[in-house]
């Protein structure tokens, strides 16, 4: 039987190769949330200094002792905070410390250690809180919460039930259906879901606009926004590094590992908390997200660690003017960092709301490793991911347009991934005994996966030792968000075109299959493009391959015969050429069709779609397989529909449809 003629549980799946974008498994699709909006990007001048409009500045730890400084400082401590700090200082002086694994250990100087201890001794005298939430709840605009070394489990928050009866009145109808938790719910019941919650704004004076699964208001601007009540808040640990202050939403005995034993959905949440600064602490073991920043304009996270969350280490949703700087994310079941539903400040922006092109959130100097995904972002628009390390994940980076209701900003566009090191993402999260529990199926062995992204830039990265593919670019046809609704009477929808995603993406100046120090560590293939019919403007140029030359790049389709040109059926290198257009590829589609079968039918059959079995090390001649997925049942057939062929111009009319239709 032909490889892509596969029987799936006796059913006949109707598939067309143009749907290869639909196969994309490495996508953290969404999360269930209230109808969310992008905050007004202009600073809120009702508070001084203004909140939002820019990444907030952090105040020094020492300045927390200055009673004349703006804002009130509330200190949280435990009985053993100072002894824990002394131990940490001794360790840092003797053995050194770092903020993330790839950072060299550096020793704390005696003078700095003494100064840090003195600051903490003075803070300890001002300590009036032993749990964090009461200190946060007592805070106002411009205040600070300093958390001294210790492991904080927040017993009072843990005691709050997940579904307090008195809070039910604040549930709302949302674009996710009934039962969503509104902002008013979070305002009145901040600890139903979160161990620590910063509720940044009062309730608005009016009514929230109606929203429903069949319609939602324009996402530009938060309607019925209340006044700042905890804007410009700074929350920080006072230890040597983030290991000294820990917020644990689950099983403390597990340390920074598994099992997570979650007791709360979220460890630390900042909701409409414009201008918030989080610094120097660890959050871990949340059932969903370790740190969750929502509808916030202006945030800074620096020297933070996010360990072993059930879903995201750090989730920044519909937030603007953000900076995540110097972080360590590991063990997360979905992804280490996730700036999803990000403001559309890129090429597809509404210039009335976002007059100028702007990258709205930056992630830099982070190590995201040993996660299901290192980075992901459904509708992660105009993010700047620069100078990070993504390694030992199942897939390193994924960004996508795989639509899920409630993620504004479709399609994903305008992100910039530059000067990162993306390597050795071959972690078999599916292996028996894996300490990370995969929340969503992703392919093993991929460096960067773009699924339906437009105008993204991948530049100046080192991408090596990803055993399946260094990079993948796959289209997501609009049809995915416009498939016929099975409900009778559902409003009609009209696809806007078959290929409005995955255009204009540029890959250049990357070093592939080589480490920064010049060692050869090949990817399975450096660049992989699905050649989706009519996709245009994608280009790959000035990249170096395994021997340091452009000629040594491996790609599918292959590099063009003449460097710098774009020729159909070859990897385009001339971005502006009218020939930089996909024309389809039946061989690739044959594999992807099998993956469609897996997803549509829930079979996860390793011989139909091999993305969930460990790929062999390039050059090893191995067959991979390992302990990923079981072997399939007996084969069968995959058949193709004509409906989506017609989207591309009619049956038999495209390179993509023709070979498949012949096999029905």
């Amino acid at each position: 039987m032909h490889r892509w003629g596969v029987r799936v549980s006796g059913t006949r799946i109707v598939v067309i190769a143009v749907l290869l974008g639909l196969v994309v498994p490495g996508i953290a699709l969404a999360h269930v949330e209230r109808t969310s909006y992008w905050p007004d990007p202009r600073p809120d001048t009702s508070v001084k200094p203004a909140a939002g409009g820019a990444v907030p500045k952090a105040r020094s730890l020492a300045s927390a002792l200055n009673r004349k400084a703006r804002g009130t400082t509330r200190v949280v401590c435990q009985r053993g905070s100072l002894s824990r700090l002394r131990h940490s200082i001794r360790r840092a002086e003797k053995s050194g410390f770092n903020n993330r694994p790839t950072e060299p250990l550096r020793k704390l100087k005696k003078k700095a250690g003494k100064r840090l201890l003195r600051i903490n001794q003075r803070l300890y005298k001002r300590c009036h809180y032993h749990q964090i939430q009461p200190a946060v709840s007592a805070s106002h605009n411009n205040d600070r919460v300093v958390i001294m070394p210790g492991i904080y489990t927040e017993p009072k928050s843990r005691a709050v039930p997940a579904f307090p009866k008195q809070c039910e009145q604040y549930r709302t109808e949302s674009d996710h259906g009934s039962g969503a938790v509104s902002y008013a719910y979070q305002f009145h019941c901040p600890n139903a879901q979160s161990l620590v919650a910063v509720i940044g704004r009062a309730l608005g004076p009016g009514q929230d606009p109606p929203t429903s699964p069949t319609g939602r208001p324009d996402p530009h601007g938060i309607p019925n926004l209340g006044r700042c009540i905890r804007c410009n808040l700074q929350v920080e640990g006072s230890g040597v590094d983030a290991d000294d202050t820990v917020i644990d939403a689950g099983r403390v005995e597990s340390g920074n590992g598994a099992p997570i034993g979650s007791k709360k959905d979220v460890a630390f949440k900042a909701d409409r908390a414009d201008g918030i600064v989080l610094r120097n602490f660890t959050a871990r073991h949340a059932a969903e997200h370790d740190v969750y920043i929502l509808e916030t304009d202006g945030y800074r996270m620096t020297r933070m660690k996010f360990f072993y969350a059930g879903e995201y280490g750090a989730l920044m949703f519909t937030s603007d003017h953000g900076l995540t700087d110097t972080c360590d994310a590991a063990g997360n079941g979905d992804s280490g960092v996730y700036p999803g539903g990000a403001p559309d400040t890129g090429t597809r922006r509404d210039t009335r709301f976002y007059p100028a092109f702007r990258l709205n959130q930056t992630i830099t100097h982070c190590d995201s490793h040993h996660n299901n995904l290192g980075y992901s972002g459904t509708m992660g628009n105009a993010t700047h991911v620069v100078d990070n390390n993504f390694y030992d994940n199942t897939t390193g980076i994924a960004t996508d347009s795989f639509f899920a209701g409630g993620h504004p900003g479709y399609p994903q566009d305008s992100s910039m991934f530059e000067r990162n090191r993306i390597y050795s993402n071959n972690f078999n999260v599916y292996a028996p005994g894996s300490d990370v529990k995969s929340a969503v199926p992703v392919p093993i062995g991929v460096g960067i996966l773009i699924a339906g992204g437009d105008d993204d830039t991948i530049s100046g990265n080192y991408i090596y030792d990803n055993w399946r593919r260094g990079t993948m670019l796959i289209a997501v046809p609009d049809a995915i968000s416009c498939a016929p609704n099975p409900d009778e009477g559902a409003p009609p929808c009209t696809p806007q075109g078959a290929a409005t995603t995955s255009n204009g993406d540029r890959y250049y100046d990357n070093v592939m299959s080589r480490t920064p120090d010049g060692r050869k560590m090949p990817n399975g293939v450096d660049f992989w493009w699905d050649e989706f019919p009519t996709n245009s403007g994608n280009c790959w140029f000035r990249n170096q391959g395994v021997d340091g030359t452009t000629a040594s790049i491996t790609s599918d389709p292959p590099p063009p015969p003449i460097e710098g040109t774009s020729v159909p059926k070859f990897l385009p290198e001339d971005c502006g050429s009218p020939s930089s257009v996909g024309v389809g590829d039946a061989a690739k589609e044959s594999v992807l069709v099998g993956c469609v079968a897996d997803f549509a039918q829930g079979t996860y059959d390793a011989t139909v779609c091999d993305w969930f079995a460990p790929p062999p090390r390039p050059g090893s001649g191995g067959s991979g397989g390992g302990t990923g997925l079981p072997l399939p049942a007996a084969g069968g057939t995959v058949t193709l529909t004509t409906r989506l062929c017609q989207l591309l111009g009619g049956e038999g009319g495209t390179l993509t449809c023709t070979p498949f239709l012949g096999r029905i």
Partner: protein
Amino acid sequence: MAFGLAAACALAFALAVPLHHAHPAKPWSPPGVALLGGLPMQQARCEQWLAAGQGERDRALDALHGVVGGPTPYGPATALTRPEAQRLFDRTCSNPIARNFLLYELYTRASGFRSLVEPNV
């Protein structure tokens, strides 16, 4: 502290006990909110699907229909019928590696293929 731990333990126990084990007092669940094994749809995974009774599963399927079938720029997102979703989860969750997959993630992905599956399969 002791009270907090006790409350946390009680909550954890309430969430963890599979429904097919004995018959512990059913925890209060908010009206109109589907829970599976005590967990909301944001957290429900194959593990909860396998442990749940049919009534609980049906409520979850209805909730997922609403969650996933949200608005798109072109109309409501597609969603699965109850039998389709039932088959999806039964098949997927029977695979040991899928034990921790989130149901809504599986559902959303499969919804993308909804129109590609012949209606009576």
